[in-house]
């Protein structure tokens, strides 16, 4: 067909576009790292962390069709493991004033890379332990059970005073989440997801999502696929949580409530459940919006009247946004499609030039 020959010719050109866009982004990231002020750079880096988190939730919700609401719990595991492994002995002594830290953790101080990998592995292992029983449940029961486990993890962290320092949380985590670290991680996770979804394993995930019975009939071990997907997702959530911890440098159990899962869910739904590029774009958009819309909570000065700060307005906007998307545009930004250059050229042809591209 005509289209076919055309696409064969155009393919290298599209690859060129991708390479150019990637290079442009890397240059941009370098410039950002040098010239952005601390706050803007932080938002920029937060985008990368939310990309990791959104992809990890999308792997479950979008690609495997398992609705999980316990993500904050796995992030907490990752954040705490990495924090405990990287903090120096003096720092631990300063933090644990109510009850001393258990001796086997007291003198452990690892560099960032092994710490974050161990954090991901521990979180993945917890996911495996939880997943094996819970994944026998379906749909909304699964959602409630994972939500329950998320809460249980939080309660355990709050009460394990001599390991996690309980409700006081940990302060002064090393600031390891540099622009380089977070964006390289985000890039690796995106690459991992793309490769995964192209592999036969990714197709098995989608088969399980679309029709469990048919998938089973095709020789897919449904339960094993589900547990693996859950474990991988927890692994990524742990990595994301660890990055978040090392960016904020203070963690406590209250940070990892359902609210955090809600934010990530919003990103996934907005981007399109089951779209990698959708999650990436929407993670960037939502993260920036969350910071930009902070003014909503603050006192506002209109010409006619003044308000004295409306804490909560920002969350009202976000929950309304989620509901409007799910009611009027369930597919989200991208549906289950992926970004392609053709899509962009389509936009150009239809609406003329619109700046900005994404990697």
């Amino acid at each position, binding site marked *: 067909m005509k289209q076919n020959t055309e696409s064969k010719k155009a393919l290298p050109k599209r690859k060129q576009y991708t390479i150019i866009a990637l290079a442009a982004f890397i240059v941009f990231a370098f410039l950002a790292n040098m010239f952005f002020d601390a706050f803007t750079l932080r938002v920029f880096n937060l985008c990368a962390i939310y990309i990791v988190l959104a992809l990890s939730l999308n792997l479950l919700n979008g690609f495997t069709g398992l609705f999980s609401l316990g993500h904050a719990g796995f992030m907490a595991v990752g954040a705490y493991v990495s924090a405990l492994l990287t903090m120096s002995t003096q720092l631990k002594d300063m933090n644990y004033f109510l009850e001393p830290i258990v001796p086997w953790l007291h003198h452990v101080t690892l560099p960032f890379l092994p710490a974050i990998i161990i954090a991901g592995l521990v979180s993945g292992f917890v996911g495996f332990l939880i997943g094996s029983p*819970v994944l026998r449940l379906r749909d909304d029961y699964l959602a409630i*059970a994972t939500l*329950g486990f998320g*809460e249980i993890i939080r309660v355990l962290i709050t009460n394990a005073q001599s390991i996690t320092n309980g409700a006081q949380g940990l302060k002064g985590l090393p600031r390891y989440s540099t622009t380089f670290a977070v964006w390289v991680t985000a890039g690796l996770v995106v690459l991992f997801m793309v490769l995964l979804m192209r592999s036969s394993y990714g197709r098995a995930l989608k088969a399980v999502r679309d029709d469990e019975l048919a998938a089973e009939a095709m020789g897919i071990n449904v339960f094993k696929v589900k547990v693996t997907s859950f474990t991988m997702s927890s692994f990524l959530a742990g990595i994301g949580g660890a990055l978040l911890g090392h960016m904020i440098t203070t963690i406590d159990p209250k940070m990892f409530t359902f609210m955090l899962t809600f934010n990530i*869910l919003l990103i996934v739904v907005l981007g399109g459940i089951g779209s990698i590029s959708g999650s990436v774009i929407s993670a960037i958009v939502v993260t920036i919006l969350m910071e930009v819309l902070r003014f909503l909570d603050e006192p506002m000065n209109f010409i006619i009247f003044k308000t004295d700060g409306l804490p*909560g307005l920002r*969350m009202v906007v976000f929950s309304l946004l989620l509901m409007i998307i799910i009611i009027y545009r369930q597919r989200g930004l991208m549906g289950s499609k992926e970004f392609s250059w053709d899509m962009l050229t389509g936009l150009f042809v239809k609406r003329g030039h619109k700046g900005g591209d994404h990697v």
Partner: protein
Amino acid sequence: MTLSLLFQHIVNALSLGSLYALIAIGYTMVYGILRLINFAHGDVFMLGAYVAFYGMTIVALPWWAALLVSIVFTALFGIGLERAAYRPLRDSPRISIMISAIGASFLLESLGVLIFGGRPKGVPVPDVLSRVIHFGSVSMIMISLIIPLFTFALLGVLVWIVNKTKTGMAMRAVSTDIEAARLMAVNVNKIVSFTFGIGSLLAALGGILWSFKYPQLNPLMGMMPGLKCFIAAVIGGIGSIGGAVLGGFLMGFIEIMTVAFLPTLSGYRDAFAFILLIVVLLVKPTGLLGKRQAEKV
């Protein structure tokens, strides 16, 4: 532990269990009909408590009038919520409607923070209800006694509605099979609205009684009770009113008694409910009373 202390705990557990039961009924009825976990139910509970609070403080209504106004308002609110957030998605995948419910829950909570303010508010408990009464060596507050009585009276009415009236029959029909019920000339939308109305009314009542027993309000107060009551409904067998009541009482007893007898574990109090849930789901996913022939509302 003396006998009177044990008695005290039992009374406490009974009243907490009754409150849980009132809220759990709303979950179980909605789930029975729409197969939807109404995440916003706990926030409807919060709304009921706040409306009554403002009725008593700003409008200066007597407490029973504030209570009536609040339950009517909240019931209408519940009906409106279903119209706006759930009805457009009724034929969508279940995940979509659940996301909408989560959104609704967050919307109500943040609206609560916005409108009612994030700071906790003290509830003026009416004197009649806060009087201390003595039975031999056991002393208790009036409200702890009234809550279970209220609950059982309402439960009687509800069981009568479901089993004896035409509306109740329609409710059972819709919960068994929506399509078939529609073919039998049941107005499904009306029945769903009615169910949401009743569920929200009970939640509001639960919220008000809760605020009389634990006299402090905050916009997130519905979150934990909401989750626990959903769990109570699952434990009892979701879709069954009797199961919800049983689950509610079980939850109340477990919570009060573990804190009373094993005070070292009280920090884990909120985790118990979830552990119980997971055990029940794995061992007997239909819940205690949720057999196939169970009365489904």
